[in-house]
């Protein structure tokens, strides 16, 4: 593993602090993955291996968890992650126009990242804001009542 890929002392301390609260180390796995992702946007293979050493788990066991949960990213993502709701109420209220508009403006498909590393586009189940459909989340910001003519203004917030 290249030096810059190693988990930092800060990351390790944060993970140690978490697993103190669980009756078994492996229970902290998901929380630990969140810590790593918070620091480096995604979870690389070397990070999975190193986390295994910390939690007494095999890399495969860690990966079985990392790949189960859709909000743990096992591939690099852009500076901003767009999570657009494609569930039923948003679909009824015009999700398909919104996603077509986003894909055209960003020139990417689902699961892809723009060439300038600015946006990654993913779908997410129902965001629980169906009375303001269609909706999406960018980073941690909820955008509701989406319309194709509002998309540019929203994207401009994210450098």
């Amino acid at each position: 593993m290249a030096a810059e890929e190693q988990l930092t002392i800060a990351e390790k301390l944060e993970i140690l602090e978490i697993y103190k609260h669980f009756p078994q180390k492996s229970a902290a796995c998901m929380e630990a993955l969140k810590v790593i992702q918070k620091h480096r946007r995604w979870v690389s293979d070397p990070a999975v291996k190193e986390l295994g050493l910390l939690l007494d788990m095999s890399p495969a066991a860690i990966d079985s968890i990392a790949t189960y949960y859709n909000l743990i990213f096992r591939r690099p993502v852009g500076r901003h992650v767009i999570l657009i709701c494609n569930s039923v109420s948003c679909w009824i209220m015009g999700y398909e126009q919104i996603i077509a508009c986003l894909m055209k403006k960003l020139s990417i498909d689902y699961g892809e990242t723009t060439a300038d590393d600015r946006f990654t586009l993913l779908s997410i189940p129902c965001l629980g804001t169906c009375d303001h459909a269609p909706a999406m989340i960018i980073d941690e910001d909820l955008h509701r009542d989406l319309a194709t003519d509002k998309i540019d203004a929203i994207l401009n917030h994210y450098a």
Partner: protein
Amino acid sequence: MQRPLTQHIKNDGTWLTLQEYEATGGYQALKKALQLPPAAVTKIVTDSGLKGRGGAGFPAGKKWETVPMGKDAPAPKYFIANADEMEPGSFKDRLLLEGNPHQLIEGLIIGAYATQARFSFIFLRWAYHYAAKALTESIREAYAAGYLGEHVAGSDYQLDLSLHISVGRYMCGEETALLNALEGKRANPRAKPPYPSASGLFGKPTVVNNVETLSNVPHILANGADWFLHLSKTAEGGTKLYGASGRVKKPGLWELPLGTSLREILEEHAGGMQDGYQFKGVLPGGGSTDFLTAEHLDVPMDFASVMKIGSRLGTGTLIVLDDKTCPVGMVRNLEQFFARESCGWCTPCREGLPWTAKLLDALETGKGRMEDLGLLAFQVDYMAPGNTFCALAPGAMEPLQSALHFFKDDFERHIHEHKCPWQ
């Protein structure tokens, strides 16, 4: 009309602080509960008839009664609020989490005391960032005020509460899958029995209740079981958060007496259909409930009545299908969701849902054949209750089986016209 759950929620988008919550009588019910033996608290909740508001409608008090009590009971016991709201078309718990987090925390502490739990968790979905802020701050306040920790409200009862923020997957809302997620594992469901009340988190007795269920508990303790029973229009007690989304004039969320008719919710509160759109059908309680149509509009929206006409109250949030939206397309969207969110643990769900989604996609894109309708009916049987570990696949079949029944002509038109007639 009384609205115990929502009457104090502010409309400026901020949540009630501890001070504001206490000014509404907050945490008085907890103090009252702590004066009673735990079993007496459970009995009040059982007598109120409070049914689980997460969708299944299981009586909350009955769940608490099954937790082993006494000094020989396994320890530590756990108590969990399920705030993993992810049912398509459901947006009711969000309001309670963002608007009045202390109401939930008080209900959770009362439930934990009634079952003598030592640790409690709020299991929150990742996407509810604002709720996470509200809960983090409110838990801090509750600790500082002595409602959590070594001596809950000055009593000998000790309880800790942590906020767990999940990292996705619809499956986590299923209570045994939620327990696996909380243990840091894949969120596959567990075989039942044993039920979580006997062997739950880390193998210890555990109760999992929905946010709306627990938010009712302080009011039941404060006002009594009889008061709660009389809030509703039917034999089942309480109010219910009802919502509506789709092409209605005023999509939204309303706290109404349990048993309010589907017609009243749709026509009075949601304002009827938008101009230019006709009502065609409705999923009464989220994505995994059966369609109802115009002939059902006078049904009282409670658990027993909706079940009697072949659907479920579920989460009580209506998803309205209009005449300009293709019913096959709508069901395809739902089945694609369920196929994607299947955990793959048991065969009927893992294999059946993607097959179902593919059949519907073929129909919607004009490539369907008449025998596909028979195959879809086969899937409905194949994923019927009892054939799977959990309710995901049987739930997924509910909108499909009812759509095949009520919108049969629309399915056949896709086949005869070799395209979606709505496109």
